[in-house]
């Protein structure tokens, strides 16, 4: 099932998504940051751009990922704008990669969000180093991946449901499926 490209988000959608991101940041910094295994912790914030791309397509994934990343950057000591860059790439990538797939499988968001988290973490380290902070590559990326990957798999479905509530996809239309058999 292919969704038409979404229009701009309305006030209600922006308000719902802002509330969702604010709650997720509170959960991340008050609870998940303290769940430490080998010095690393689960990262729920990378799942939001992936979920927005999955639910609303690449364009919405990129926009929502950028805004989510900026919100994350406000509370992190690392370079401002880096999470925004990674967020928009992850949102766009997830949307583009899953756009043509059948959405009936429950495991599709689990697999795609987990892959997005791995790509996002590696991209964060590499882009950070390329854009002027070589210390990013000295971080323990292996531990971060080992902890964040299973956590992403566990949190994928709740995050997908929450993002679909906050920014619901546009209903399917006939023009959005020009190659369909019943046109």
């Amino acid at each position, binding site marked *: 099932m292919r969704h038409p490209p979404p229009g701009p988000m309305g006030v209600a959608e922006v308000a719902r998504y802002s509330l969702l991101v604010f709650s997720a940041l509170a959960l991340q910094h008050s609870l998940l940051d303290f769940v430490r295994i080998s*010095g690393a912790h689960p990262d729920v914030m990378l799942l939001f751009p992936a979920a927005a791309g999955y639910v609303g397509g690449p364009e919405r994934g990129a926009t929502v990922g950028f805004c989510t990343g900026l919100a994350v950057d406000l509370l992190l000591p690392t370079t401002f704008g880096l999470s*925004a860059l990674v967020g928009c790439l992850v949102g766009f990538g997830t949307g583009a990669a899953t756009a043509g797939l059948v959405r009936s499988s429950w495991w599709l968001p689990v697999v795609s969000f987990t892959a997005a988290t791995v790509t996002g973490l590696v991209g964060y*380290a590499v882009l950070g180093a390329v854009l002027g902070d070589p210390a990013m590559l000295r*971080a323990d990326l292996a*531990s971060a991946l080992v902890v964040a990957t299973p956590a992403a798999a566990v949190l994928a479905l709740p995050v997908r449901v929450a993002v679909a509530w906050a920014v619901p996809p546009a209903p399917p239309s006939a023009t959005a499926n020009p190659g369909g058999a019943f046109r």
Partner: protein
Amino acid sequence: MARTRRARRSRRPRLTIGLLILASITVITLDYRGDAHGAIGSLKRVAHDVFSPVQSAVDAAVRPIGSFLAGAVHAGALEQQNAKLRAELGVEQRRLLARGADAATLRSLQALEHLSWAAAVTQVDAIPKVAAQVVALNPSDFAATVQLDVGRAEGVDVGMPVVGGAGLVGQVIDVWSSGCTVRIVTDARSAVGVRYGNPAGYALMQGSGIGDPLAVQYIQPGTALGVGEVLTTSGLQNALFPPGIPVARITSFSSTPSSTQEAVSAQPVVDLAALQYVDVLQWEPAP
């Protein structure tokens, strides 16, 4: 006509991602160059001020549950740890008393030798402190930092050293009204001037990332060192920290005939993974 509209629609996501990437790179560049540090810093401070009460409320609601579960699971180990800590506290109290006597002897010797300049050297114990609690540990996996519950309202400022337990924890890098961020010594961006040996030698200690040993640089090959030797802050002119704060213990050292410096590794004297309470020293580096 329909084809033109369709082509325009298929180009739109690419245009959007292009613009967003450009916007991100612009923000990153401004942050690195420092052109927008004032504006970005103010934004971050406002965000922290808004977010801190929420974080504290969630923390207050969630932490007792976590502590209860952890306590139930580790009850036996905690009892043992308590007994060990009581014994260590006794030893430290004895040392403190002995140190007080040493300080009195030193003062009288300084007076006898007319070493009035020695009194001007900063004594760490004499620096005013602000007690703080760690409220967030390493918010990013890519930077070794902690957040404390004290900020500008308590007189904390950027650049102030933070000590906890037996020694140096790090330095305040960002501060808002009710909290601050501290870069800890293991962060890959951290560098501390240290003093070792007798007679004193000076070296630079750099972080290598969370959980990794510290690298001590600029020690000549063949220098007499000992495993377990404590490195303290150098306190040289324009140093970022006052002198004499223990930072790390040497864990290994080696050199080859062709090496230009000793390869020295060290471990922080503070258990950084279990930080809970620290002191911010109200001391600022000389401008």
